[in-house]
């Protein structure tokens, strides 16, 4: 048998070496390619925008040019504390709502998936509340919570909460029965199965919930700020509109876009750290 073993081992060694070489090479080639194409596309976008505004294309008569936006940004925002405070406030609301949604949503999803009786009791309530759009909670939330700040965080929380609950719940339900059975027959206790089989099984679903959740959270926080707050990036954008300065509106929009993008990067990073076994192939 040694020759068979050896040949298998040798074949796999060659294979794995080849694949790592490939990924390395692909890595080196691919990133610059995406970068220059992406950069080109962004430059193209700004040129197109500028041309449309310059030539007074229909509907573009009150839209500021990219140059005007940049000028306003550096003149009125880049070096003022209020602008960066808006960033800070919005980020803070998103983070509070998002983290709270994870802290409560993940355990609830796990319980719904593993405890039948709790499921029968709570799931109908969740299905009743889930279809209500987060922004429909704004009026009630303002009446209920003592401060505006709390109601915005609450609405943000609602935005991510149901998404994470449903994703984790689905994750538990789709665990392969073989994964349970194997652990059972190897003598694992209920708590070991929970810690070492169920939790890791649902991590990919938690990650999906986080990706969707962070996007919804930004949506909700911006809208909520426009309706019910005197601070944050959403408020900044709205004030630009109210005061009749479209350049400020665009500064706000771009800021929100960048903020959302940054949070997605952070969430992606966390997700990758949660699933080391997914980073291979």
């Amino acid at each position, binding site marked *: 048998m040694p020759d068979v073993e050896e040949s298998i081992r040798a074949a796999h060694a060659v*294979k794995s070496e080849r694949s790592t070489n490939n990924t390395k090479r692909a890595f080196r080639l691919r990133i610059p390619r995406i970068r220059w194409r992406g950069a080109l596309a962004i430059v193209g976008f700004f040129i197109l925008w500028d041309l449309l505004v310059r030539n007074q294309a229909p509907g573009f008569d009150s839209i500021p040019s990219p140059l005007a936006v940049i000028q306003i940004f550096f003149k009125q925002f880049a070096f003022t504390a209020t602008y960066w405070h808006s960033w800070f406030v919005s980020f803070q609301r998103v983070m509070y709502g998002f983290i709270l949604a994870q802290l409560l949503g993940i355990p609830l999803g796990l319980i719904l998936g593993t405890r039948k009786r709790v499921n029968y009791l709570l799931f109908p309530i969740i299905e009743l509340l889930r279809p209500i759009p987060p922004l429909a909670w704004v009026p009630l939330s303002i009446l209920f919570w003592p401060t505006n700040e709390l109601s915005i965080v609450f609405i943000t929380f609602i935005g991510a909460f149901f998404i994470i609950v449903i994703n984790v719940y689905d994750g538990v339900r789709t665990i392969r029965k073989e994964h349970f*059975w194997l652990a059972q*027959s*190897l*003598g694992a206790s209920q708590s070991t199965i929970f810690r070492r089989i169920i939790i890791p*099984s649902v991590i990919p679903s938690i990650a999906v919930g986080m990706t969707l959740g962070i996007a919804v959270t930004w949506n909700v926080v911006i809208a909520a700020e426009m309706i019910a707050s005197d601070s944050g990036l959403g408020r900044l954008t709205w004030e630009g509109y109210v005061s009749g300065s479209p350049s400020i509106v665009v500064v706000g929009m771009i800021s929100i876009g960048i903020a959302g993008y940054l949070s997605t990067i952070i969430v992606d990073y966390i997700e990758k750290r949660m699933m080391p076994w997914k980073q291979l192939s």
Partner: protein
Amino acid sequence: MNTTSGALVGKNISKTYAVKGRADAVALKDCTFHFEANKLNVVMGTSGCGKSTLAYILAGYIAPDEGNLTLDGQPAKGPIGNRLMVFQETALWPWMTVEDNVTFGPVVRGTLSRARAKARSHELLDKFGLGDFKTKYPEQLSGGMKRRAELAQALINSPDVMVLDEPFRGLDVMSRELMQEYFLRLFEDTGLTTIFITSELEEAIFLADRIYIMSDAPGRIVDVIEVDLPRPREVSCLTTERYRELKEIALKSLYGHIKTEENDFAIS
């Protein structure tokens, strides 16, 4: 591991699944068998004849509706470590390294310290040609390697019986043949009571001490064929006269008991 244990005997085992909106599916009916200890018992049947259901019952994952199962004379109930199963599709936990997968059993039961379990897993993994893959995740392994890792994961627990449900299905021809030989050596070294389920006749004859022919659903054992090819078995036995004879006997038995589209009646 050469003890005479692991005789798995089933009497009149039946299992029916309720299917929503359709007639109940009878997977097994009056399935009676005597799997001998320290033998390589192969259960052979066409797909959909209830083989996997039988495997789950043998491993204790599902309970039969009727009939009883005994292991060495004692009633066998529930999934306990003395009957371990290798599943049709890999059941290695993707979030654990190969080593953690293998040491899981002894560590959670506390039968071996973590260090001892680790050392033992290294022995097994080295033996199975996975020495360089201890710290890899299952996704990084080929199909054949996953199968060997699963064998190590089961064997580290010194089970009395191994149940393998079409373990080499889905592997390419080359790796399947390698794995069959590999498995044959492993069995001939350990003498571990094995129930190997397959739908491939060549595989059945090449591996088995005895072939248990299973009828179409509802499944039951309808014939037992003694395979007297000499051990240790080599690939060369596939070209012998005896192999051809056995194949003919088995085919005859299969066609006698299994409905096919052309052969829509059961001669039993």
